[in-house]
């Protein structure tokens, strides 16, 4: 592997292209801005150590996978640290509302669609965001999350259905109030 100016340019263009989507993804995984920054920095440092030829063609899947694995690793470490000081029932699950609140409080006005999305189980939120926010295919989402393609399809179908039903329910409620 040659690390020359062209390689450095490739790294820079990859950072420009993926910095924002990876930070958004990491924020959802960790629930904290500073940890999300840690995760994405580490992802790009690992990119620098990786042979370009082995990841080109599936660069987005590689980056999202590394980002996800490191975020999970960080979360596990923190759970262990917390468990030394707290009893197990005190440890918040990453799927609990504190994560959703941390994410939502960034946004000045959150649309109803996004509010409904935030109420879904974390695994449904994750695959829906990978699909509709980051444009990954079912196959790519399966590679990132290690779920089967069928499972990815099921989670997206169920999540989308819940959002649609709740939005329809709300618009009907508004209609009857009028």
């Amino acid at each position, binding site marked *: 592997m040659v690390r020359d100016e062209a390689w*450095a340019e490739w790294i820079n263009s990859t950072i420009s292209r993926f910095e924002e989507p990876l930070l*958004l993804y990491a924020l959802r995984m960790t629930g904290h801005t500073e940890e999300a920054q840690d995760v994405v*920095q580490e992802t790009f*440092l690992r990119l620098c150590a990786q042979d370009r030829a082995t990841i080109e063609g599936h660069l987005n899947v590689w980056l999202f996978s590394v980002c996800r694995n490191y975020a999970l690793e960080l979360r596990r470490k923190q759970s262990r640290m917390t468990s030394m000081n707290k009893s197990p029932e005190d440890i918040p699950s990453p799927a609990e509302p504190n994560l959703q609140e941390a994410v939502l409080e*960034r946004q000045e006005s959150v*649309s109803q669609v*996004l509010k409904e999305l935030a109420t879904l189980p974390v695994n449904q939120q994750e695959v829906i965001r990978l699909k509709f926010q980051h444009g990954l295919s079912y196959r790519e989402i399966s590679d990132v999350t290690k779920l089967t393609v069928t499972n990815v*399809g099921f989670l997206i179908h169920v999540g989308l259905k819940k959002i*649609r039903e709740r939005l329809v329910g709300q618009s009907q409620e508004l209609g009857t109030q009028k």
Partner: protein
Amino acid sequence: MATPISEDDPRITAYALGEMNGVERDEFEAELQRNPALQREVADIQAAGAMLSAELKQEKPLRLASHRRTVIDAEVKKAVAIDLTPSARFRLSLRWRPLHKVGAAAAVMLCAAMLWIASARSQENKRVAEAHALIRRLHEAIGRYVADHHQLPPDTGFGLAPDSVAQGAGKTYDAGSLWRCLSKQTQENGKTFGPYIQFSASELTAYQDPVKGASFYVADPWGTPIGYVGDARRVVHNPGSFDLFSAGPDRLTGVGNAPSPVNLAYDGLDNNGDGIVDNADELGAARMNGAMTVACNEARTTNAHLDDVNNWDQ
């Protein structure tokens, strides 16, 4: 179809989001033709997907903190420096020894040529960056338009002459749609909508629309109309949403990609006579060999292909 489809069947969502292929897709489409309830379900899923996609893309952007970027930049510099150790530099310098035998005039000419190439490349890179920014602004503006109007602006009929009266099986394409729908303020039922974007003079090209009169279409930095595919039957890359692209430096879509030597994806023709201009089937080889997708992955840094600049690979 082998098994009947209920509304809880994930295959409906897979089809609506363009995730179904081959025999399964053919069988599903046959069932779709016969089943109006299924058609409504597919349309509802696509509308929900478009809304979700538009809302998610409006979330506040995040950037790496500058001190973290500095750490990464230092790592990159270190890696380049290690690869260019004194012995490696010596080996590289040997390659250029014959240059010492070349006269000074030749060296000056070489330098001038290199400067000219660098300047041309820098100009071209600037245009590519402008195209990326324009696509991003348009994508966001269309998302805001959809959130207000619950429908996409009319398809611009990319590939057609702007002043042609084109019909797509009941749909009129409007070359000035992006300018008309996104850059003007409108009043509907006492509510004010837009403008969703402001265009600079260099982004707009005047033309005479046969239906709506004096109009503008949105052009990319090379002067080609921006490709906006909002007719659901023509959308290839963002099923349930819309495709947006610039034809790039070569001003042509999907040219020079293997295995076919020339692919004019979106040539503006109704090739199979079904009344729809350049639908997914008519893109044929250009679509099947990945001309609109592979090129952008392979050639991102070389700007050799137009489809670097689009809303499915930004």
